[in-house]
């Protein structure tokens, strides 16, 4: 029996539909959710979200957020969520380099914290972007709105 998944950010609804399984980047480690999971509320860290629906895998880059399981409903409240096909790998790579430079050239602890956070987001995006070539996947992204 599939479960309902909804991925929403403050700006839009990224995905809504039935899925068979998902693997999310919880703060305490990778977290697999299958149908009929017990009610759960967890904080997510920046990472890759794997969604499996009807034998197809989809990957999204998440930059942190929350995950709630209730009944057979899973809701991901993401700070930002991007599908593989929405990420421009070259740009993600550039952002990663910039983030690395910022970490190296930081001046204060607060700046370091921010720089490390953006570095982690950049790393996630690059990892997910590479999936486009390395792993068969299906796009979850809704049509971009003009």
């Amino acid at each position, binding site marked *: 029996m599939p479960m309902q998944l909804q991925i929403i*950010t*403050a*700006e839009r*609804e990224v995905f809504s539909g039935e899925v068979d399984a998902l693997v999310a980047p919880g*703060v305490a480690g990778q977290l697999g959710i299958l149908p009929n999971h017990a*009610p*759960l*509320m*967890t904080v997510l860290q920046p990472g890759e979200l794997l969604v499996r629906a009807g034998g197809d895998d989809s990957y999204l880059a998440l930059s942190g957020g929350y995950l709630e399981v209730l009944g057979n409903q899973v809701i991901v409240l993401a700070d930002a969520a991007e599908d593989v096909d929405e990420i421009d790998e070259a740009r993600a790579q550039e952002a990663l380099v910039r983030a690395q430079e910022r970490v190296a050239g930081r001046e204060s602890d607060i700046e370091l914290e921010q720089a490390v956070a953006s570095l982690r987001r950049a790393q996630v995006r690059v990892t997910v972007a590479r999936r486009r070539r390395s792993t068969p996947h299906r796009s979850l992204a809704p049509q971009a709105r003009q």
Partner: protein
Amino acid sequence: MPSVRDIRRRIRSVENTGKVTNAMSLIAASKMRRAQLAVTDGRPYAEKIHEVIATLAAQPTDDDTVHPLLETRPVNTVGMVVITPDRGLAGGMHANINRQVARFILDSDATVRSIVVGRKGRDFLVRYTDTVQAVFTDLSDRVSLADTTAISRLVIDGYTAGEFDEVHLAYMRFVSTVQQQPVIERILPVEPAALESAQRVGYIYEPDPATVLSALLPQFVEMQVYHAILESIASEQSARMVAMRNATDNANQLASDLTLVMNKLRQDSITNELLDLVGGQVAMEG
């Protein structure tokens, strides 16, 4: 009495103004549609996060510590986030919101310090009050959550540091295309909504309820600020659309009235000339 030429010049000027206001109203209409979409797109997230916080706040905690953003203090200083448009020509919109804010400041017993978003509010508050603490202008029409976090950070840090004992948010709520409403809401301390008992489910919390809550609360505040800005943009554009459409109608009306006057004048002058001509001829023959 103005001459026909004067009136013709006037008509042309009125028509040009009409073209400009018509273009502005069309632009505002398209921006309004986008802003409205942004408001609706953000709604599921807003509702969900609200619900989760309500559930979390209802959880019994092991100790008595209250999260700083939930803590109520005696109110000495009130922080006020005033969200206004950058540009005018939007009817009475900024006057409405500014009036509401002014009344709030006058009625408040506590010291009010305002954080202003948008030029219209800045100009007003800088001129008539001494409350302005920070100003943000030139937000784009397609604002993103990231653009607004600087504003929410200021509010959250100010509250945590005890600079404000309460924070209110003033903005124009988008009710419909022809109706916007100035509102002032308290955003800090966060007041979790009361829960219906059916919603109290035994969740597994990872890592634990307190951590989840303290990660969510700032996000909730950020989201409220972001949402208010979206509403304000939608209101601004729809107010401008309506104002500019009225202006276009007025311009067209004025142009047609003037055309009537001009035609009448022209006919009068032709009649007069003819009369002169005929009169002269009659005099010659006679």
